[in-house]
Protein backbone atom coordinates (compact mmCIF):
# COMPACT_ATOMS: atom_id res chain seq x y z
CA UNK A 1 0.00 0.00 0.00
CA UNK A 2 2.73 2.51 0.79
CA UNK A 3 4.38 1.54 -2.49
CA UNK A 4 1.20 2.43 -4.39
CA UNK A 5 0.93 5.68 -2.45
CA UNK A 6 4.51 6.60 -3.33
CA UNK A 7 3.90 5.72 -6.95
CA UNK A 8 0.87 7.98 -7.17
CA UNK A 9 2.54 10.80 -5.26
CA UNK A 10 5.76 10.84 -7.27
CA UNK A 11 7.79 12.88 -4.86
CA UNK A 12 10.98 14.62 -5.95
CA UNK A 13 13.43 16.59 -3.85
CA UNK A 14 13.77 20.36 -3.79
CA UNK A 15 16.61 20.69 -6.28
CA UNK A 16 14.64 18.42 -8.60
CA UNK A 17 11.58 20.64 -8.22
CA UNK A 18 13.61 23.68 -9.22
CA UNK A 19 14.94 21.76 -12.22
CA UNK A 20 11.45 20.76 -13.35
CA UNK A 21 10.24 24.32 -12.92
CA UNK A 22 13.02 25.62 -15.17
CA UNK A 23 12.46 22.91 -17.77
CA UNK A 24 8.72 23.62 -17.91
CA UNK A 25 9.18 27.36 -18.35
CA UNK A 26 11.79 27.06 -21.09
CA UNK A 27 10.05 24.29 -23.01
CA UNK A 28 6.59 25.85 -22.98
CA UNK A 29 7.71 29.26 -24.18
CA UNK A 30 10.01 27.76 -26.83
CA UNK A 31 7.31 25.43 -28.09
CA UNK A 32 4.83 28.32 -28.40
CA UNK A 33 7.22 30.35 -30.52
CA UNK A 34 8.40 27.32 -32.50
CA UNK A 35 4.92 26.05 -33.32
CA UNK A 36 3.77 29.50 -34.45
CA UNK A 37 6.80 29.99 -36.70
CA UNK A 38 6.68 26.49 -38.19
CA UNK A 39 2.94 26.67 -38.86
CA UNK A 40 3.16 30.15 -40.34
CA UNK A 41 5.93 29.26 -42.77
CA UNK A 42 4.24 26.01 -43.81
CA UNK A 43 0.88 27.81 -43.90
CA UNK A 44 -1.02 25.21 -41.92
CA UNK A 45 -2.81 25.75 -38.63
CA UNK A 46 -2.93 21.98 -38.16
CA UNK A 47 0.88 21.88 -38.02
CA UNK A 48 0.96 24.66 -35.44
CA UNK A 49 -1.43 22.95 -33.08
CA UNK A 50 0.04 19.50 -33.56
CA UNK A 51 3.63 20.68 -32.87
CA UNK A 52 2.35 22.34 -29.72
CA UNK A 53 0.51 19.19 -28.68
CA UNK A 54 3.57 17.02 -29.32
CA UNK A 55 5.75 19.35 -27.27
CA UNK A 56 3.23 19.21 -24.45
CA UNK A 57 3.19 15.40 -24.47
CA UNK A 58 7.00 15.27 -24.52
CA UNK A 59 7.18 17.77 -21.69
CA UNK A 60 4.77 15.82 -19.53
CA UNK A 61 6.74 12.62 -20.09
CA UNK A 62 9.89 14.40 -18.91
CA UNK A 63 8.51 16.41 -16.02
CA UNK A 64 5.59 14.52 -14.50
CA UNK A 65 7.00 11.11 -13.49
CA UNK A 66 9.50 11.14 -10.60
CA UNK A 67 12.59 10.30 -12.61
CA UNK A 68 15.81 9.51 -10.71
CA UNK A 69 17.50 12.60 -12.14
CA UNK A 70 15.16 14.67 -10.01
CA UNK A 71 16.01 12.72 -6.90
CA UNK A 72 19.77 13.22 -6.92
CA UNK A 73 19.84 15.55 -3.93
CA UNK A 74 17.74 14.02 -1.17
CA UNK A 75 17.09 16.16 1.87
CA UNK A 76 19.70 15.64 4.59
CA UNK A 77 17.81 15.43 7.84
CA UNK A 78 19.64 16.21 11.05
CA UNK A 79 20.09 12.91 13.01
CA UNK A 80 17.37 12.41 15.62
CA UNK A 81 18.40 12.95 19.23
CA UNK A 82 17.27 11.15 22.32
CA UNK A 83 15.23 13.25 24.77
CA UNK A 84 17.78 13.85 27.59
CA UNK A 85 16.78 15.10 31.02
CA UNK A 86 19.73 17.56 30.77
CA UNK A 87 17.83 19.83 28.26
CA UNK A 88 15.23 20.59 30.94
CA UNK A 89 17.61 21.85 33.51
Amino acid at each position, binding site marked *: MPALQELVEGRIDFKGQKKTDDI*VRVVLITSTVLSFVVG*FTLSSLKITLST*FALCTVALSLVV*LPPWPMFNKHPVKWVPSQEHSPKSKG
Partner: protein
Amino acid sequence: MHSIYARVNGVSGLWSTCIMVLLAAVALSSFLFNADPKGDLDIVSLKVFHSKTRRYPFRNEEISFVKFNISTDFTPLFNWNTKQLFVYLEAEYTNAQGVNNTVILWDRIVRRKEQAKIDVVQKDKYRLRDLSGSFRDVLPAQYSLKYNVMPYVGVLSYGEAARTLEPIDFPEAKDSVS
Protein backbone atom coordinates in the same frame (compact mmCIF):
# COMPACT_ATOMS: atom_id res chain seq x y z
CA MET B 1 5.98 20.72 -7.50
CA HIS B 2 6.50 18.11 -4.88
CA SER B 3 4.00 15.56 -6.15
CA ILE B 4 2.68 14.62 -9.59
CA TYR B 5 -0.58 16.41 -8.92
CA ALA B 6 1.29 19.57 -7.91
CA ARG B 7 3.41 19.43 -11.04
CA VAL B 8 0.33 19.00 -13.23
CA ASN B 9 -1.23 21.99 -11.51
CA GLY B 10 1.85 24.15 -11.98
CA VAL B 11 2.45 23.18 -15.61
CA SER B 12 -1.18 23.70 -16.61
CA GLY B 13 -1.05 27.32 -15.47
CA LEU B 14 1.74 28.31 -17.82
CA TRP B 15 0.42 25.93 -20.51
CA SER B 16 -2.96 27.62 -20.69
CA THR B 17 -1.34 31.04 -20.91
CA CYS B 18 0.93 29.81 -23.71
CA ILE B 19 -1.90 28.36 -25.73
CA MET B 20 -3.95 31.55 -25.39
CA VAL B 21 -1.00 33.65 -26.56
CA LEU B 22 -0.52 31.26 -29.50
CA LEU B 23 -4.16 31.56 -30.57
CA ALA B 24 -4.06 35.34 -30.17
CA ALA B 25 -0.98 35.43 -32.41
CA VAL B 26 -2.80 33.32 -35.02
CA ALA B 27 -5.78 35.70 -34.88
CA LEU B 28 -3.54 38.74 -35.27
CA SER B 29 -1.69 37.15 -38.18
CA SER B 30 -4.92 37.38 -40.18
CA PHE B 31 -4.36 41.12 -40.47
CA LEU B 32 -1.21 40.51 -42.47
CA PHE B 33 -3.21 39.02 -45.32
CA ASN B 34 -4.97 41.75 -47.23
CA ALA B 35 -6.49 40.22 -50.31
CA ASP B 36 -9.15 42.05 -52.26
CA PRO B 37 -10.38 39.86 -55.08
CA LYS B 38 -12.56 41.43 -57.73
CA GLY B 39 -14.73 39.61 -60.25
CA ASP B 40 -17.53 39.97 -62.76
CA LEU B 41 -21.23 39.95 -62.18
CA ASP B 42 -23.82 40.11 -64.95
CA ILE B 43 -27.54 39.86 -64.70
CA VAL B 44 -28.66 37.62 -67.52
CA SER B 45 -32.39 38.03 -67.07
CA LEU B 46 -34.82 39.57 -64.64
CA LYS B 47 -38.49 38.64 -64.76
CA VAL B 48 -41.34 39.56 -62.48
CA PHE B 49 -44.43 37.39 -62.20
CA HIS B 50 -47.70 37.42 -60.32
CA SER B 51 -47.96 34.54 -57.89
CA LYS B 52 -49.36 33.48 -54.55
CA THR B 53 -47.55 34.20 -51.31
CA ARG B 54 -45.98 31.14 -49.80
CA ARG B 55 -47.58 31.33 -46.39
CA TYR B 56 -51.06 32.55 -47.32
CA PRO B 57 -51.96 30.96 -50.65
CA PHE B 58 -55.04 33.15 -51.06
CA ARG B 59 -52.99 36.36 -51.28
CA ASN B 60 -51.31 37.63 -54.43
CA GLU B 61 -47.87 39.12 -54.69
CA GLU B 62 -45.16 39.71 -57.25
CA ILE B 63 -42.04 37.61 -57.26
CA SER B 64 -38.95 38.46 -59.23
CA PHE B 65 -36.70 35.80 -60.77
CA VAL B 66 -33.10 36.68 -61.45
CA LYS B 67 -30.62 34.77 -63.58
CA PHE B 68 -27.04 35.86 -63.14
CA ASN B 69 -23.55 35.09 -64.32
CA ILE B 70 -20.75 35.19 -61.77
CA SER B 71 -17.10 34.78 -62.54
CA THR B 72 -14.73 35.39 -59.64
CA ASP B 73 -11.57 33.89 -58.22
CA PHE B 74 -11.57 33.89 -54.43
CA THR B 75 -8.30 31.98 -53.93
CA PRO B 76 -6.32 35.00 -52.57
CA LEU B 77 -8.60 35.02 -49.54
CA PHE B 78 -7.52 31.56 -48.37
CA ASN B 79 -4.70 31.87 -45.84
CA TRP B 80 -3.74 29.52 -43.00
CA ASN B 81 -6.41 31.00 -40.77
CA THR B 82 -9.35 30.81 -43.19
CA LYS B 83 -11.92 28.26 -42.20
CA GLN B 84 -14.52 28.99 -44.85
CA LEU B 85 -15.74 31.69 -47.13
CA PHE B 86 -19.38 32.72 -47.33
CA VAL B 87 -20.14 34.21 -50.73
CA TYR B 88 -23.50 35.85 -51.35
CA LEU B 89 -25.30 37.80 -54.04
CA GLU B 90 -27.35 40.76 -52.86
CA ALA B 91 -29.96 42.93 -54.52
CA GLU B 92 -30.14 46.46 -53.14
CA TYR B 93 -32.96 48.81 -53.95
CA THR B 94 -34.89 51.69 -52.45
CA ASN B 95 -38.65 51.43 -52.40
CA ALA B 96 -41.17 54.23 -52.89
CA GLN B 97 -41.11 55.21 -49.21
CA GLY B 98 -37.35 55.76 -49.37
CA VAL B 99 -36.44 52.68 -47.36
CA ASN B 100 -33.29 50.86 -48.43
CA ASN B 101 -33.85 47.14 -48.95
CA THR B 102 -31.13 44.52 -49.23
CA VAL B 103 -32.11 41.01 -50.24
CA ILE B 104 -29.80 38.02 -50.47
CA LEU B 105 -30.63 36.02 -53.59
CA TRP B 106 -27.97 33.34 -53.65
CA ASP B 107 -25.18 32.17 -51.40
CA ARG B 108 -22.50 29.55 -51.29
CA ILE B 109 -20.11 28.28 -48.64
CA VAL B 110 -16.59 27.73 -49.95
CA ARG B 111 -14.59 25.46 -47.67
CA ARG B 112 -11.40 24.75 -49.61
CA LYS B 113 -9.02 26.68 -51.81
CA GLU B 114 -9.68 24.31 -54.73
CA GLN B 115 -13.37 25.26 -54.71
CA ALA B 116 -12.68 28.98 -54.63
CA LYS B 117 -12.98 29.73 -58.33
CA ILE B 118 -16.63 30.49 -58.92
CA ASP B 119 -17.83 30.50 -62.51
CA VAL B 120 -21.57 29.92 -62.62
CA VAL B 121 -24.66 30.94 -64.51
CA GLN B 122 -27.47 30.32 -62.09
CA LYS B 123 -30.87 31.38 -60.98
CA ASP B 124 -31.57 32.73 -57.54
CA LYS B 125 -31.82 30.36 -54.59
CA TYR B 126 -34.07 32.55 -52.50
CA ARG B 127 -37.06 34.45 -53.71
CA LEU B 128 -36.82 38.14 -54.42
CA ARG B 129 -39.99 39.73 -53.20
CA ASP B 130 -40.84 43.11 -51.79
CA LEU B 131 -42.55 43.44 -48.42
CA SER B 132 -45.31 45.51 -49.96
CA GLY B 133 -46.10 42.71 -52.40
CA SER B 134 -45.43 44.62 -55.59
CA PHE B 135 -42.44 45.89 -57.50
CA ARG B 136 -44.38 48.62 -59.28
CA ASP B 137 -43.17 51.63 -57.31
CA VAL B 138 -39.71 50.33 -56.63
CA LEU B 139 -36.59 52.15 -57.83
CA PRO B 140 -34.11 50.23 -59.97
CA ALA B 141 -31.94 47.72 -58.10
CA GLN B 142 -28.19 47.23 -57.96
CA TYR B 143 -26.78 43.74 -57.59
CA SER B 144 -23.56 43.06 -55.70
CA LEU B 145 -21.47 39.98 -54.93
CA LYS B 146 -20.14 40.07 -51.41
CA TYR B 147 -18.06 37.71 -49.31
CA ASN B 148 -17.47 37.03 -45.63
CA VAL B 149 -14.19 35.46 -44.52
CA MET B 150 -14.61 33.21 -41.48
CA PRO B 151 -11.31 32.48 -39.73
CA TYR B 152 -10.43 29.61 -37.43
CA VAL B 153 -9.43 32.12 -34.71
CA GLY B 154 -10.10 35.82 -35.00
CA VAL B 155 -12.45 38.47 -36.35
CA LEU B 156 -14.86 38.06 -39.26
CA SER B 157 -14.16 40.24 -42.25
CA TYR B 158 -16.41 41.30 -45.09
CA GLY B 159 -15.79 42.54 -48.60
CA GLU B 160 -17.38 43.16 -51.96
CA ALA B 161 -16.14 41.40 -55.06
CA ALA B 162 -18.36 42.65 -57.85
CA ARG B 163 -21.19 45.03 -58.54
CA THR B 164 -23.48 45.72 -61.47
CA LEU B 165 -22.51 48.94 -63.14
CA GLU B 166 -25.93 50.50 -63.53
CA PRO B 167 -29.10 49.94 -61.60
CA ILE B 168 -31.54 47.62 -63.33
CA ASP B 169 -35.22 48.39 -63.58
CA PHE B 170 -37.84 45.90 -62.52
CA PRO B 171 -40.06 45.01 -65.48
CA GLU B 172 -43.85 44.87 -65.39
CA ALA B 173 -45.30 41.86 -63.66
CA LYS B 174 -46.58 39.14 -65.99
CA ASP B 175 -48.75 36.15 -65.42
CA SER B 176 -46.58 33.07 -65.18
CA VAL B 177 -48.72 31.05 -67.56
CA SER B 178 -47.64 33.14 -70.53
